């Protein structure tokens, strides 16, 4: 054990007393204050039932000390159709529920379900049993955009009844509690909203009226299961949209709910689908951004409250509890990224916690696209059966492995291979490790992305992997000698049993009819050569080009994005697109759709309409940054492969993808060699 690590171990247990202290929630003895917040996984079977994947996913966090797990987004009414979700109203779910809860209980954790009816936040035509979307009033959701039909009293009663049925099914399935989603999505929140609820009957108007369906739902659930189960509400405390309810009203709702005497706890939440940044905050949103609003709800409601909102460090979690701002600390994504958060904390290894960077690429964006979730930094998330705890097998014989390239893929291969007992050396031609993450982190709103490779670097350091930078290794530096490779590493001759190439991708070169275009890496490495007014020729319309534009605007330059598409950032996900576009706008970046850049001249850049060919000049622009996409940097791989022997590759040098694919392919390769 190294000296700093020993220090850490000593100091870390103290300082987290509150976080690791038990808590009594409506009769349940939680072993600590850590709650895995509800989130949709899309792991349900085609029949809308719990799957084995669910069981393993939850079990892995229970095994690692999480006190309470809340499932997330189970469908409470048959009129709602979403693929990949559990149909909580279906008695066929009971046996799967029992497997899930038994696996979680075995490790001493408690498990709640979360019930939702989506109201206007679904389109009613996901499957083939179509339904008119129904909601409090005919007001469309910002994202779905479908005008719903207003609910009749009979339909409201039916929804309330189904929440009762679904609760009963949860009781039979072995759950300890159930939570109603009155949150960033969910019909119950739509009733609370002056924007979405314009009813004149007893379900609209006053705060009590708007809360009526929630109160009736809780009462119906209680009627079904009595005091046997904990019943909570996930409550959006501020809709954060024009015309919606604000924080003051949200706190008032919390207060009223507290007076009912039927609700056991509040799970804090904020925003709606009309404001992606509040609902599914990206890394640009400060950590703990909703702690204060949660604290107000706790005081107003006098109910046990679960804090939420980009909480990732034990230090922040502890502080929230010490300051009395919440009773429990909820995390969703951080526990997807590192299931061992509590374990590592308990054994004093806080530095080993893999931080969630709130990129949303593996989780939120996939679930919005209808895909099962994972984590780009934790390939075992959702793949616990294949890669979860206990699945890493030592190699038959430890080997000496050279990894060429210290980007995410190279570092990850090195980490996994070293964990398995291989002796690993990493080299990179750049002066620092990190690969393309070095560029990503230069943009302040995305700087937290750097924690991904920082964590890998720390792991390599701990595992004794040598990372040598500033060495541009070519095929000429390698000779095959039998089963071995002799490598000239900066003058020293070393032998390896295998080589992993992780050399990343290069930008597709751009050719203008006149003038020079420079690439994204060139522009971001050294923007000083760029003019005061820049056009980004964005054919890629992905994350890299948007990040580059944002970075350049941050250097004080006037930036225009010219794209043959409708807009930039088309390659981004549902939760990351609006914040990215808003940040670009806030930075003064202008968008010129349907145009390519063809010439850079003294007076500016000449654009050409992508469909009509009409020309247009952007006056005053002095530099063109071209974003035409990426090509695998695979020459070294092919050259080395000619030697035969153990040469493999991972990451963008296979084909240019995101960091998630790089890390996934590295995990797979690291386990194989």
């Amino acid at each position, binding site marked *: 054990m190294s000296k700093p690590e020993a220090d850490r171990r000593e100091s870390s247990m103290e300082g987290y007393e509150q976080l690791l202290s038990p808590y009594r929630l409506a009769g349940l003895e939680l072993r600590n204050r850590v709650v895995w917040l509800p989130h949709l996984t899309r792991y349900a079977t085609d029949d809308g039932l719990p799957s084995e994947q669910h069981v393993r996913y939850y079990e892995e966090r229970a095994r690692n000390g999480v006190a309470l797990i809340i499932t997330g987004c189970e469908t409470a009414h048959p009129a709602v159709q979403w693929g990949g979700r559990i149909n909580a109203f279906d008695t066929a779910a009971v046996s799967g529920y029992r497997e899930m809860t038994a696996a979680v209980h075995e490790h001493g954790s408690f498990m709640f379900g979360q019930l939702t009816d989506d109201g206007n936040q679904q389109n009613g035509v996901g499957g083939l049993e179509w339904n008119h979307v129904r909601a409090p009033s005919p007001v469309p959701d910002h994202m779905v955009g479908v*005008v719903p039909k207003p609910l009749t009293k009979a339909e409201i009663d039916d929804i309330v009844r189904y929440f009762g049925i679904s609760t009963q099914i949860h009781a039979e399935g072995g759950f300890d509690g159930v939570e109603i989603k009155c949150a960033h999505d969910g019909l119950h929140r739509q009733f609370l909203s002056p924007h979405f609820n314009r009813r004149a009957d007893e379900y609209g108007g006053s705060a009590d009226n708007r809360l009526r369906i929630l109160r009736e739902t809780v009462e119906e659930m209680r009627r079904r299961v009595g005091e046997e189960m904990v019943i909570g509400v996930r409550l959006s405390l501020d809709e954060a949209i024009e015309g919606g309810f604000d924080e003051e009203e949200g706190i008032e709702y919390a207060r009223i709910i507290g007076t009912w005497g039927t609700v056991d706890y509040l799970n804090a939440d904020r925003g709606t689908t009309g404001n992606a940044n509040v609902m599914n905050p990206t890394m640009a949103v400060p950590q703990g951004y909703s702690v204060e609003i949660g604290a107000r709800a706790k005081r107003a409601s006098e109910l046990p409250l679960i804090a939420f909102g980009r909480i990732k460090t034990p230090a922040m979690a502890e502080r929230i509890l010490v300051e009395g701002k919440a009773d429990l600390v909820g995390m969703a994504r951080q526990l997807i990224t590192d299931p061992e958060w509590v374990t590592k904390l308990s054994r004093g290894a806080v530095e080993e916690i893999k931080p969630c960077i709130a990129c949303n690429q593996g989780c939120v964006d996939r679930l919005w696209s209808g895909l099962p979730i994972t984590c780009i930094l934790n390939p075992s998330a959702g793949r616990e059966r294949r890669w979860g705890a206990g699945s890493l097998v030592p190699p038959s014989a430890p080997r000496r492995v050279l990894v060429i390239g210290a980007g995410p893929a190279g570092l990850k291969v090195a980490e996994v291979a070293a964990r398995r007992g291989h002796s690993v050396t990493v080299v990179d031609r750049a002066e620092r490790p990190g690969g393309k993450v070095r560029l990503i982190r230069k943009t302040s709103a995305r700087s937290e992305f750097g924690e991904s490779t920082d964590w890998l670097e720390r792991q390599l350091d701990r595992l004794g992997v040598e990372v040598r930078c500033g060495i541009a290794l070519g095929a000429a530096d390698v000779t095959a000698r039998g089963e071995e490779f002799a490598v000239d590493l900066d003058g020293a001759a070393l032998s390896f049993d295998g080589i992993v190439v992780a050399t990343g991708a290069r930008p597709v070169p751009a050719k203008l009819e006149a003038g020079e275009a420079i690439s994204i890496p060139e522009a971001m490495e050294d923007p000083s050569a760029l003019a005061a007014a820049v056009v980004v020729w964005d054919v890629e319309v992905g994350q890299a080009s948007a990040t580059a534009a944002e970075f350049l605007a941050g250097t004080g330059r006037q930036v225009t994005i010219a794209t043959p598409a409708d807009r930039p950032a088309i390659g981004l996900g549902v939760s990351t697109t609006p914040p990215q576009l808003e940040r670009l706008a806030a930075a003064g970046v202008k968008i010129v759709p349907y145009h390519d850049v063809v010439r850079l001249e003294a007076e500016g850049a000449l654009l050409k309409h992508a*469909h*009509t060919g009409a020309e247009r000049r952007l006056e005053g622009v002095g530099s063109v940054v071209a974003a035409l996409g990426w090509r695998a940097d695979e020459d070294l791989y092919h050259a080395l492969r000619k030697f035969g022997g153990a040469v493999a590759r991972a990451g963008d040098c296979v084909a240019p993808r995101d960091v998630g694919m790089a890390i996934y392919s590295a995990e797979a390769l690291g386990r194989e060699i």
Partner: protein
Amino acid sequence: MSKFERLFEPFQLKGKTLINRVVWLPHLTGYSHEGRISDKHVRYYAERARNDVGMIILGCETVNPKYRNGARVDAFDPRSVEGYRRLADAVHEHGTVLVGQLVDDGSQNICTATLDWSYEYAPSPVADWVLGLVPKAMEPEDFDFSREAWVASVRNHVDGGYDGSELKVAHDGLLRQFLSPLYNQREDDYGGDREGRERFVREVLEAMRAEAGPDHILGIRFPFDECIPGGFGLEEGLELLGDIASWGIVDYVTSDLGVHSALRFCNPPMSTPAGFARYAVRAASQAVDLPVIAYGRIRTPEMAEEILERGEADLVGVARALITDPQWARKARRGDSSRIRRCIGCNQGCLDRIWLGQEITCILNPAAGREARFGEGTLVPAEQPRRVLVIGGGPAGMKTAEVAARRGHEVTVVERSNRLGGAVNILSRAPTRRDFLDSVRWLENELAALDVEVRLGREIAAADVVLRDDGGFEVDLTDHGGERRQFDELVVATGAVAVLPEVAGVGAASVVGVREALEGTEEIGAEVVIVDGVGTFAAVSAAQMLADTGRRVTLVGEALETAANLGPPDRQIQLTTLFEHGVEAIPGYSLRLIDLPAVAFAHVLDGDPLELRADTVVLATGWAADESLFVGRDGLDGNVHRVGDCVAPRDVGMALFTAEELARSI
């Protein structure tokens, strides 16, 4: 004697007898259940087999385990065989030949749909889509992997009782990518000249033939022209086809044109003329000595017969026409071709949904994909025929009347305008949307055939309806109390009304709704600004129509993408055609003020102002249910119903689906 002599002539294909020349073309349905053939598949295909289809080709089964996604059948997996058998039995029972289509996607799919990720591979690192993923160039082990996957898949087809397998060398698929000079830039034995580019296709075919034996039908789906710059054109396409035919392995070819970046050829919308691909099909028939299956918006048996008669093809393939009307062939055979419900090429129920990863249906045929619920034999006669009054003669009202009348009810439809069809009459005035009219004309014909009473030009107000003590209604069908009639059930189908933005100036004389603009009831000036708040067809088709009449048209959309709510294939096509028609499209601005000739907008992200000049402003800013007649009657009793846009404004598909549902419950 049938007027379709050729169409109903049997055909011999590799020792199998096709009862006629009608082929249901391969298409992805999304009906798989956990990657297997589902009951939905079986019912969907059996319903067409029962109705005189000669050969059915089930589309897009997954060859490559790396491309798994829930929507498709995993052909590579031996566990699929059991489902194949059930399907084959159900289809064979009716004498129909069954072929399964196999695809390895290459660059044209993502390998991250499940959590078992891998890099997409293809001949060369060239992305198919403008915005697509750059694949990895195949390495030797990838060739082995793919070849073995094709062989395993054909084995499962044989074991499952399929009569044949079709290789997708088509608008999508790795094998076409190999043939393409654009997508195959390899410098090894698998690239370069025709022989090189064909090498892998030949290896796969040879391996499959060896596995499947001599009696299994092997076909290919093949685009005669990639229809993109740098791809192979018609001339080279036919040479490639000639080479493939010369190997003596393939038993037939299904026609195709285009690739994903040229969707107007492979997913032709209604603006593409019927039979648009006949020129290429004819050329292929002349070029090769293989049975050729025609394709390409063949909507009527009359056109099919003509194609056969002129020797343009040996068999006629339709995909969407049989989704819309499973009895397409049967009606033709019985001499009832005028009763065929024609596919209008809207793509809304089928292709758009597939591109979104959803199960397909047909907006005009709610039974498609829902055969268990709405298919043949499910319509139960009414226990007691009742007198039904339908108020509103749009799609929802007409459909309710049709289904109710089929069940034996006595139905009257009252429509305030002088024509049945509702909003469809107006929206189909745009030349690119003209075929939509067939949907309501068909319903109109059926209503006539079913003796439904239709009263035009009468607007019923709430006051005209009197509730009787026995739960029935008395309604004055004239506007002067001249004809009081008794009804047992009342169906309100009054549609939707336009919603105007709360912006100064919308009330001005030269500001018109998009429906009025399409109808031509309002005068439209030379310079037109169209405000699109919904991103559907209304605005884009109006823009094209007005531009075609010589007006200068600017389409300003509130969304950041023009025509944002069209399905992916139609959006690609419409965006291209908009510009071809000379429309200027400006996405991302919301309307602030109209003070003609000035129209002021602000950018939705940064508020940047935009001022345009217009003689006329056309508003397509949304719809609201016209529930004026219904409000207050809800819950009154069980005999008042409403259906379609007057419940909530949706598309024609939702209107017809809910109408089908309602009429079966009355």
